């Protein structure tokens, strides 16, 4: 089986399925990006949407396409390919399940998108009850989640086969990381699946009259925080296990990389209350407990930062760099596969610091639901994660399509990365500042009856439109690169880089592959953090809410 595990190329049959995911992901980027541009223009106050299009409809499309479709499709495609590369070609059965998953997700996306376009679901991507969308919207969302489970099942099957064929050996690092993320995703989506299947679908179909709002929100946020780690971990996979190979260095420590991923699995889920800190009906002691659990992810984050910079420094010194920061200069800045994800990595430093502020219990009141939060996740998700995904695209797409990343495209890719950085510095920076003044997120342009306070923050909205326009230019560049790599780049072989650990003799402890143990601890932590407050919420529930449609029809 070693021939399979050391296979350097992803099997074309697996490549086809991964590419199918990427086509959907980049269509979502194109449409979602256009919606983002429109939003920033509307908020500048200088532009109005034509033909009766509603701002919040545009906002719903942007959130659903960027937050749910682009990310889920890209991640599933990437992980499917990474497992095929490192644990061996998927079996026909696994591949079939993967294809079914892909189509179920795609059909679900089309269902949800249709309802949004018909103005039957202007509920944003968080669809908070008692705003009531058309039942087809909720069913479409269910399909996206179920499809992603099937996609995940395909990955787990191939991982399980590798384990069976290699008893007593730690699995390939990239496969292990992908499976951690898939497992976390499955455990997390149980929350959103529960609220949609048991609350929102029956309610939107008229089978029940009312919905318990706080139960629904709690189930949503049980899912909502691990959702952001589901986006982040594939970026970490690239930083830990792929970037070292790209720069010609080594992975600092294979075991510590695995340990940090396990810590992310344990501490990403029992923490949803930190999104509900200012909500009534939840005891502040339980909120604080989940805040403490939230902050535990700082530990693997510190480990990650250490490992990455250790890899960079060691590589630089091996090239003869001297002085405290001499190694920094010798990094391969002319290679887009490194530079673009590096911009993402560097952005994670302020992004992570902002996240600590947001989750800080009472300090959350200063920024909750202000546009600061939007600025925050446009640094984390829309810069750190997305630029890393772009960095992966530069080699993975040509690898799968049998083409080459040309010098011209590499150059364009680096320009794209910097354009993105500049655009985001304007947009996210202005959002952070405006948020501190109290400017709300998710709101169309408003002077609030010529309020002096609103007049103070409107200039920041103009800066956001400038940033949004630059970012849209970045999206156009990225689409040009993607289309080139998928269809037009010269034929050739592009490497799928997989890093090697510095110390090959040191085998990762087998306890890391003990899923009963880690899933057991995950379940215990979730039960510990949620059981009592959840029972409280149900027992002390007020009368349920009927549905409301507070937005206009066509």
């Amino acid at each position: 089986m070693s021939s399979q595990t050391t296979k350097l190329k992803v099997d074309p049959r697996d490549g086809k399925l991964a590419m199918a995911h990427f086509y959907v992901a980049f269509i979502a980027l194109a449409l979602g990006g256009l919606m983002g541009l429109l939003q920033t223009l509307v908020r500048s106050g200088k532009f109005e949407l034509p033909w009766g299009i509603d701002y919040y409809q545009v906002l719903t499309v942007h959130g659903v396409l960027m937050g749910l479709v682009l990310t889920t499709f890209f991640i599933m495609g990437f992980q499917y390919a990474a497992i095929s590369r490192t644990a061996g070609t998927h079996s026909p059965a696994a591949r079939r399940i993967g294809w079914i998953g892909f189509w179920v997700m795609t059909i679900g996306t089309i269902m949800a998108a249709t309802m949004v376009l018909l103005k039957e679901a202007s509920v944003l991507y968080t669809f908070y009850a008692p705003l009531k969308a058309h039942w087809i919207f909720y069913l479409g969302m269910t399909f996206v989640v179920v499809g992603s489970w099937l996609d995940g099942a395909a990955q787990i099957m191939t991982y399980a086969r590798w384990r069976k064929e290699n008893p007593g050996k730690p699995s390939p690092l990239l496969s292990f990381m992908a499976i951690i993320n898939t497992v976390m995703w499955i455990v997390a989506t149980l929350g959103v699946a529960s609220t949609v299947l048991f609350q929102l679908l029956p309610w939107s179909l008229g089978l029940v009259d009312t919905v318990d709002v706080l139960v629904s929100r709690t189930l949503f946020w049980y899912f909502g925080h691990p959702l952001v780690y589901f986006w982040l971990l594939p970026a970490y996979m690239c930083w830990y296990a792929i970037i070292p190979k790209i720069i010609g260095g080594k992975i600092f420590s294979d075991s510590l990389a695995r340990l940090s991923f396990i810590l992310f699995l344990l501490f990403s889920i029992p923490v949803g209350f930190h999104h509900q800190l200012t909500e009534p009906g939840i005891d502040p002691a339980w909120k604080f407990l989940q805040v403490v659990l939230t902050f535990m992810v700082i530990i693997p984050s510190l480990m990650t930062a250490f490992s990455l910079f250790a890899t960079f420094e060691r590589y630089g010194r091996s090239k003869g760099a001297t002085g405290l920061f001499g190694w920094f200069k010798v990094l391969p800045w002319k290679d887009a596969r490194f530079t673009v994800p590096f911009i993402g990595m560097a952005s994670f430093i302020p992004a992570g610091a902002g996240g600590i502020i947001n989750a800080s219990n009472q300090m959350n009141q200063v920024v909750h639901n202000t546009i600061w939060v939007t600025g925050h996740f446009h640094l984390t998700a829309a810069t750190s994660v997305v630029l890393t995904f772009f960095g992966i695209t530069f080699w993975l797409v040509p690898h799968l399509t049998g083409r080459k990343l040309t010098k011209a495209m590499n150059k364009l890719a680096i320009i794209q990365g910097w354009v993105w950085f500049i655009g985001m510095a304007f947009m996210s920076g202005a959002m952070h500042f405006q948020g501190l003044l109290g400017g709300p997120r998710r709101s169309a342009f408003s002077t609030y009856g010529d309020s002096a306070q609103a007049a103070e923050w409107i200039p920041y909205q103009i800066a956001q439109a400038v940033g949004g326009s630059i970012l849209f230019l970045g999206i156009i560049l990225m689409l040009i690169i993607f289309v080139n790599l998928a269809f037009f780049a010269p034929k050739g072989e592009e490497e799928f880089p997989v890093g090697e650990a510095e110390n090959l003799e040191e085998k990762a402890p087998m306890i890391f592959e003990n899923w009963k143990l880690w899933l057991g601890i995950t379940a215990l932590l979730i039960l510990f953090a949620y059981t009592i407050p959840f029972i409280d919420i149900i027992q002390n529930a007020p009368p349920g809410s009927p549905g409301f449609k507070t937005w206009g029809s066509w």
Partner: protein
Amino acid sequence: MHMHKFEKIWLIFGIGALVVFLSVVGVSAFYLGNKPPSCLTTIDPKKVDTQAPFDKPGLNKVEGKEWDYELVYVASAFFYNPGEVEVPLGAKVKVIATTKDVVHGFQVAGTNINMMLEPGYVNEIVTTFDKEGEYLVVCNEYCGTGHHLMSSKIKVVK
């Protein structure tokens, strides 16, 4: 599993900082009373207008409590009742609010008054208005087409 000496130092420092940080947050919340708004009172969202204190929205003087006034708001798409209110400078005020329909986000811009309003629940926060001026109250949770028009005003006067 081997861990580099520098990484050990880094993690000990990091985890130490984390413990200090969480202790500060915890002491501030539970000893100094700066807990995030977490009122546990429930209400029938259909009967908000007839129930005290929401039958009398606005600023009401109270006696024998830790605060001097209660400032009562009823939120509904896309209005706050009252739309404007005057508060004496330096008054200690308990802001009490709820919603009659969907979820709203009650925020007084430029202050730390920021709390979610959810149907069936009352939310509240005690605060002192110690700076003169006009404050904008916005809705910071999406509630529908008119979300960005939903606002109110608090004038803090001498």
